């Protein structure tokens, strides 16, 4: 008899579409081909994991039809099984899978819609962190401002696309207009994705706002982040940008960087 470990490894392989001949002898048929019995489990895994992907990527599914989504999901699941039981965390690689999936070659924007939906999913499931307010920063004297480093909410996501993915996404929401014609050449978008309360809010950013937030999210100091924004737009307004991210709950911590020795 195989050990339990060997048996479970073989069943895993069989459910993933591998060879199941050795298992047939271990499974009582009771009138049904043991391989057909294993297929019940394989089908269950594919169906429920497809449902999990559909829950995370509803707009991708709407854009391509249920049947095509099921086909793409099936191919994806063959390569990517969940690593752990929390299915809200399953499917991170679906966008890059779609980007390489030959049948989707004509739908250049689809992978970016998937990236947006994954970002929304991550924002929705992120831990809630208390935001810093203007008042919390009132003790910082102007002379220390160059050493100020702000912490951005770890649940906040930034997505950039050369396609109008925000408009496509909104048109495919329950209250959207699915018949809306969207010109795919109407330009790209930079989005800040952030949960406020129970809802995830999408906000369109200018190129310098994106550079500013990206730098802060990378842990750069406030002055370095402002420099990054100014390199894109000389008219970047730091006071307005700082005020905005304090208003909308983007900042969840701050510290004064110790000046380096050199």
């Amino acid at each position, binding site marked *: 008899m195989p050990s*339990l470990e060997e048996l479970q490894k073989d069943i895993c392989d069989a459910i993933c579409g591998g060879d199941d001949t050795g298992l047939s*002898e*271990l499974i009582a048929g009771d009138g*049904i081909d043991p391989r057909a019995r294993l297929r019940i489990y394989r089908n269950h895994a594919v169906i429920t994991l497809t449902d999990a992907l559909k829950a995370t990527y509803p707009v991708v599914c709407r854009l391509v039809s249920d049947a095509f989504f099921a086909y793409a999901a099936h191919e994806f699941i063959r390569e990517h099984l969940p690593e*752990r*039981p929390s299915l809200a965390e399953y499917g991170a690689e679906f966008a890059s899978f779609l980007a390489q999936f030959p049948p989707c070659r004509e739908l250049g924007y689809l992978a970016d819609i998937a990236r947006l939906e994954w970002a929304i999913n991550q924002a929705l499931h992120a831990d809630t962190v208390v935001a810093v307010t203007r008042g919390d920063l009132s003790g910082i004297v102007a002379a220390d401002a160059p050493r100020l480093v702000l912490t951005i909410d770890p649940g906040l996501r930034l997505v950039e696309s050369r396609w109008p993915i925000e408009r496509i996404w909104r048109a495919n929401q329950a209250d959207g207009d699915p018949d809306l014609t969207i010109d795919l050449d109407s330009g790209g978008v930079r989005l800040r994705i952030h949960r406020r309360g129970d809802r995830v809010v999408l906000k369109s950013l200018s190129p310098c706002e994106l550079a500013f937030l990206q730098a802060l999210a990378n842990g750069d100091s406030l002055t370095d982040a402002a420099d990054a924004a100014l390199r894109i737009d000389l008219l970047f307004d730091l006071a307005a940008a700082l005020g905005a991210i304090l208003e909308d709950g983007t900042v969840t911590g701050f510290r004064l960087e110790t000046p380096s020795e050199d």
Partner: protein
Amino acid sequence: MAKHRSTTRDGLAAAGIGLRSAHIAEIMETRPAIGFLEVHAENYMTGTPAVAALEALRRDYPISIHGVGLSLGSAGALDREHLARLRALVDRIEPDLVSEHLSWSGLPGVYLNDLLPLPYTEESLEIVSDHIDEAQAALGRRLLIENPSAYLRFRHSTIAESEFLSELVRLTGCAILCDVNNLYVNADNFGFDPWAYLAALPARAIGEIHLAGHHRADIDGRSILIDDHGSAVSKPVWDLYAHALDRFGPKPTLIEWDSNLPALPVLLAEARYADRIGAMQAAERRTRAVA
């Protein structure tokens, strides 16, 4: 509203329902009378807003946390990170019941999203009981272990499932979650007597009963029951439930409905029906005691 806390020594007084996301808002708003709410642990392990909803609901309803991902039957070590997340959820919600399955779900780093059957052998018994010991120590409380539905059985099994569960109770002090629909499905699929199975379980260790719907499928020209939680509880499962209550006495009972989810009142009506069967069984037991 008064908390529907358990009032009898037999546990939660009225039947509960599985809490599904589509019903959360309606339950929050209307606060219907429900014996308890049961949630799948794995849906509440992130920072999802659903956790805040559950924290609000636990003020009015007893909560049961039902794990589907701990994989107590996996040959390797338990997923310690998953166990830690389960513990954090249990600490936060302080549920009345915490349950898991007599099954396995994958290998380290691979989760098949299913409750797969085990060969019932001495080796499996040792592995599962060690894992239950570890989980109960980590959670600081007794686990209820559910009998799974199954579509295959292993030739090298040497222990009957009812005996396997009884041994787990003896070895670990765990309780049993008796899923009457799973039992009915398995008895039909493998041709054994569900009444004898119930008779072999230790009545005092039964901590909860599950009820759900199933459907009949055709495979290789043979009919097979699939436990899909996608319909009302069937007549023969209600009959088996009545028999289980007759044998075990009143037990917290849960209606599970996961696919083809109906409107909330349909689910509540199923729970009320379970309560009626419970009341009838209790009356019968009293009559017998007098006679």
